[in-house]
């Protein structure tokens, strides 16, 4: 039972354009959502998060949007840079308990 789903295994975008990565969840109890970025042969690194009491959080080029009614989360990267090429995982938790991860989306930013 996948509670957090990333339905696009891969995404390619041109440098300078917007990257939009999507994530859907089924557990309505999730109250905190995170995005992690992972380069090959490294562990995931925290990117940005959002609490369920908000619908948007922004940090530089990265913005996360939360649509609770649709149980949908998205990460926008503007403008995309070649160094952003990585696997992006969304994750969710209930009351700061264990993280449940999606399966990841491989983002490739083309120069």
């Amino acid at each position, binding site marked *: 039972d996948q509670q*957090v789903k*990333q339905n696009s*295994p891969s995404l390619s975008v041109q440098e300078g354009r917007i990257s939009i990565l999507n994530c859907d969840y089924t557990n309505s109890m999730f109250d*905190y959502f*995170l995005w*992690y970025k992972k380069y090959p*042969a*490294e*562990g*995931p*690194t*925290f990117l940005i*998060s959002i609490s369920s009491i908000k619908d948007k959080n922004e940090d530089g080029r990265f913005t996360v949007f939360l649509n609770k009614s649709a149980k949908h989360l998205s990460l926008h990267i503007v403008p995309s840079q070649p160094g952003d090429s990585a696997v992006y*995982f969304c*994750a969710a*938790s209930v*009351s*700061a*308990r*264990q*993280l449940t*991860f*999606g*399966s*990841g989306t491989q983002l490739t930013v083309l120069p």
Partner: protein
Amino acid sequence: EAGVAQSPRYKIIEKRQSVAFWCNPISGHATLYWYQQILGQGPKLLIQFQNNGVVDDSQLPKDRFSAERLKGVDSTLKIQPAKLEDSAVYLCASSLLGGAGFQETQYFGPGTRLLVL
């Protein structure tokens, strides 16, 4: 600040053999996590320690997997005996406090890639 250290980075064993992985968290971090990441999937929590006590091991296959964090610092995860389906990357992560009622950032190590033949 040194990150989370893990060793070995790679391990190849035959099924039914035993294997152990080591993790040293960021200095001062009370909470340590072990995750299993199977190819094409996201990390799945196996066990969470706070200091030297187990907080959550509900997804740890206890018939073959064991973990300890005896002095509340570094930790060892063991598989005995290994099965083909244990082939995965084993990630260790740590966070400062854990169980603080708010979501802390977890810092991940580079992982140990295990291949069971």
